[in-house]
């Protein structure tokens, strides 16, 4: 049987994937025509193209996949004619193919409203990688941008503009609120405030009447007689189904576009199906990927002789817009007659939650989440599966109050087996639990076996919970073991290495592990050894167990050169030392930059220059900054009471004392700290693993804050401490973290996973609830006493020094493949492919 698919977008691709997975090889001959020059790519994550993903990263499957599946793929060649009598199609380039069944997956195009001036240069749509490339080129000379459309795609486009460096970006929405299909007015207001705090200007109830400028756009005219100067404009005002081919072939289409299909996705012609955004089902166009995938599944299954129907699709969505969670599920706008709403609005935190409940209070009908959508999966399942709500339904958005712990509302356990967990790939709770029972006990294995979590990824946390829950229910003890060589968690291994007094990676592997180790277990074991004994990390054969950065005591950078960061405690440095850094940088031709942690980073050092560079720095009184290690990095400080007219205490002196105490301390992940001299918090201590802020009476100690990809404010551990008590608490806190955290877990994540949370941590650190405070302090003191600058040891040891060369058989030759490019009077690494 021969199948021709018109359109190679996400849904067209998914159809091929599903059909080839179900069919025996040779059962179908499949031919695909795509209009774009690339094979299908992930349009949902298009904006990540600006955040560094390449077109290749976004590709659903490479050309070799099509080859492997025996699919004939024509790219850059749209179909221009369908002959329904002869059952053939003809392409733009004149290729004719016959079909037994024809699948229309032509998708949609951006809807461009008929505003005078839309043809001007600098006006873009946001749909394909080509659109993005055009925008990227134009954005270089644009300072002010605008997006027409405050819906889901419009806000994505606004994010893209910011990513492109157009920081002054306006969003113009015709409706009185943002995302009018998904959220209500109150939710829109919270979202608007959040987006405005991030630098976007939002205009609602604004109707664009003209686009100004001659050849190039230079402004926008609105119907309320106002104007806005802009250098570029992106139109993202909705989609228009691509139904022109179907129309030409005489198939029925809707008044406002879309190819009319029945529950089997068949058009008026029984040999032609339409799926995805071009299909009009029950009067509705489904502009999301999940229903498109479901349509692909229905048609593929029926071609295999099945009897599936498409009967509409839940349009619940959760997404992250410029870092703000937005979700809506079920019926987000229930009317008074159908149900009642519970609303939580916190304009301080920028959180809005609304749940709609049936009049008898038993069922969840739908809702809206803005600012915090962690509960989305749970709420979606609760509403979809008609799980009976707890007696106080507000608990499902507030969490169980009074006392810590508890799952808060209905947990995954209460979901029925047919509850759909992954809607992109339609995988149910039962499927996932079965896969786990069949021995797929990791997220990767479950992904491979069920495909759950491979689409938008939104269900991954829930799948993980299901895996853990299923394993627990089988009586299995669930732990994060390091890898195939060590059947222990990091915490267990730490205790065992200590008890057995093991000093090298090989000793640990011989005594506690199997096999030969790997890149997953070597760094954590090396880190445990360093945290326990604080010996030189390159000694005793432990050098090759270190991660690359630790092995060369420097950070590997693009091109294979290294960067050098001397320690500058508290950010305080003398003019003499500044001059030395400048001289070293000039001598070894290094790019210099001030870091976020009040230090100076020197980039572009050849591996063979590192010992000489460090010899000079050490001679001038510098020591390693451990920027390469999972170790204490920097203790940032504001200038404090010595100069600042607001300063309460001398924050610089305290920062230096803290940094010198914990320098070189190896931990499960990097550690950052800061000390602020007053409540104005100029050192940003509340974003650090441990942060100290001066008060009238002493110091407030905050812990477990985090910048990075998932910022989190530190929590207050203790108030008004004197300096000695403050250090004692930090000793206990850090040692407890080092002993119990999983590998590569920052303090924030460690605390998030801790049962009992900050209350439990306070009890351990302040009230000594585990009776280990004295031990923790002693262990820390041992590490402090054992500190030596490892770069000093490295340059003084000829055996270690010898390892710093690129070629073993030509130590004097530098890597000839390293090249630099000039930039702003300095240099940068050559861009990699």
């Amino acid at each position, binding site marked *: 049987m021969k199948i021709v698919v018109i359109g190679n977008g996400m849904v067209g691709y998914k159809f091929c994937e599903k059909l080839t997975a179900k069919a025996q090889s040779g059962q179908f001959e499949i031919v695909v025509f795509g209009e774009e020059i690339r094979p299908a790519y992930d349009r949902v994550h298009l904006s990540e193209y600006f955040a560094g993903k390449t077109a290749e990263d976004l590709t659903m499957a*490479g050309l*070799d996949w099509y080859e492997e599946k025996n699919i004939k793929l024509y790219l850059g060649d749209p179909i221009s004619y369908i002959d329904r009598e002869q059952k053939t199609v003809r392409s733009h380039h004149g290729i004719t193919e016959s079909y037994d069944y024809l699948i229309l997956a032509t998708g949609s195009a951006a809807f461009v409203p008929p505003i005078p001036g839309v043809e001007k240069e600098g006006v873009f749509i946001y749909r394909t990688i080509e659109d993005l490339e055009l925008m990227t080129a134009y954005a270089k000379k644009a300072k002010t941008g605008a997006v027409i459309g405050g819906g889901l795609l419009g806000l994505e486009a606004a994010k893209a503009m910011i990513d492109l460096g157009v920081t002054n970006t306006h969003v113009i929405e015709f409706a009185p609120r943002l995302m009018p299909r998904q959220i209500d007015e109150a939710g829109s207001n919270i979202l608007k405030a959040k987006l405005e705090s991030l630098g976007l200007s939002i205009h609602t109830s604004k109707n664009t009447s003209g686009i100004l400028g001659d050849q190039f756009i230079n402004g926008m005219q609105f119907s309320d007689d106002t104007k806005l100067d802009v250098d570029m404009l992106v139109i993202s005002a909705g989609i228009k189904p691509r139904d022109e081919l179907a129309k030409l072939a005489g198939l029925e289409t809707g008044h406002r576009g879309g190819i009319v299909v029945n529950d089997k996705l068949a058009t008026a012609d029984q040999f032609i199906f339409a799926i995805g955004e071009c299909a009009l089902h029950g009067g509705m166009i489904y502009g999301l990927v999940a229903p498109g995938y479901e349509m692909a599944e229905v048609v593929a299954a029926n071609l295999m002789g099945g009897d599936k129907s498409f009967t509409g699709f839940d349009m619940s969505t959760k997404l992250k817009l410029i870092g703000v969670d937005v979700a809506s599920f079920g019926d987000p706008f229930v009317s008074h007659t159908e149900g009642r709403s519970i609303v939580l609005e916190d304009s301080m935190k920028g959180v809005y939650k609304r749940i709609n409940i049936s009049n008898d209070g038993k069922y969840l009908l739908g809702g809206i989440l803005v600012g915090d959508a962690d509960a989305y999966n749970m709420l979606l399942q609760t509403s979809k599966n008609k799980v009976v709500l707890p007696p106080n339904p507000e608990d499902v958005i507030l969490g169980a109050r009074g006392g810590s712990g508890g799952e808060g509302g209905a947990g995954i356990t209460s979901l029925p087996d047919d509850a759909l967990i992954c809607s992109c790939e339609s995988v149910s709770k039962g499927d996932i639990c079965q896969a786990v029972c069949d021995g797929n006990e990791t997220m990767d294995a479950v992904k491979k076996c069920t495909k759950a979590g491979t689409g938008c990824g939104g269900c991954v946390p829930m799948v993980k919970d299901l895996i853990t829950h299923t394993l627990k229910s089988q009586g299995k003890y669930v732990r994060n073991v390091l890898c*195939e*060589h060590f059947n222990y968690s990091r915490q267990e291994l730490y205790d065992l290495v200590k008890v057995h007094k093991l000093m090298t990676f*090989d000793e640990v592997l011989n005594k506690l592990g199997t*096999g*030969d*180790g*790997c*890149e997953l*277990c*070597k*760094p954590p074991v090396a880190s445990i050894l360093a945290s326990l004994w604080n010996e030189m990390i390159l000694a005793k*054969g432990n*050098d*090759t*167990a270190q*991660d*690359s*950065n630790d*092995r*060369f005591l420097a950070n*590997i950078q*693009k*091109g*294979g050169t290294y960067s050098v960061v001397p320690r500058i405690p508290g950010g305080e440095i003398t003019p003499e030392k500044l001059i030395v850094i400048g001289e070293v940088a000039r001598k070894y031709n290094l790019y210099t930059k001030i870091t976020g942690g009040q230090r100076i980073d020197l980039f572009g050092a050849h591996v063979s220059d590192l010992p000489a560079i460090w010899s000079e720095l050490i001679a001038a009184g510098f020591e390693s900054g451990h920027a390469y290690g999972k170790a204490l990095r920097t203790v940032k400080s504001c200038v404090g009471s010595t100069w600042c007219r607001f300063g309460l205490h001398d924050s610089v002196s305290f920062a230096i004392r803290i940094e010198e105490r914990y320098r070189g301390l190896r931990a499960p992940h990097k550690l950052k700290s800061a000390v602020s001299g007053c409540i104005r918090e100029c050192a940003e201590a509340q974003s650090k693993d441990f942060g100290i802020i001066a008060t009238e009476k002493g110091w407030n100690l905050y812990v477990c804050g985090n910048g990075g990809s998932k910022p989190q404010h530190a929590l207050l551990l203790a108030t008004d401490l004197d300096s000695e008590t403050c250090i004692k608490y930090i000793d206990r806190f850090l040692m407890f973290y080092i002993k119990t955290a999983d590998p590569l877990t920052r303090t924030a994540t460690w605390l998030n996973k801790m049962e009992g949370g900050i209350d439990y941590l306070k009890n351990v650190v302040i009230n000594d609830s585990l009776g280990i405070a004295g031990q923790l302090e002693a262990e820390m003191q041992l590490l402090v006493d054992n500190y030596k600058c490892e770069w000093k040891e490295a340059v003084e040891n000829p055996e270690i020094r010898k*390892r710093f060369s*690129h*070629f*073993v*058989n*030509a130590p004097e*030759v530098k*890597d*000839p*493949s*390293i090249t630099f490019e000039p930039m702003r009077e300095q240099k940068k690494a050559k861009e*990699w*492919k």
Partner: protein
Amino acid sequence: MIQENVLTWFLACRTTDVPDNGGVCVKYHDDQIALFNFSRRGEWYATQNMCPHRMQMAISRGMIGTQNSEPKVACPFHKKTFSLSTGKCLSGDDCGDLKTYPVKIENDLVYIGIEE
């Protein structure tokens, strides 16, 4: 006619020049070869030094280990892993494979076999 690949054995370095369970980079004319002393297994391996993922000269600085007893190396840049015996990428994506070379040890000297 039987075609034989002729190997030239090239003297790379002394065995003691290569750290236990680690690698070094060997210069062979304009080529760079990563040489590994997997002393825990008593095995030596050599591969191209360039990681095919981002074309970086870094494989010799990677950590070595095993995956189901298959010896492997992880590139320090993005932790793509490759089999040391076959050069095949084990990270489950198609970033390309490593070229491998035979290694022999004679009198504490390391030789790498180059096909001419």
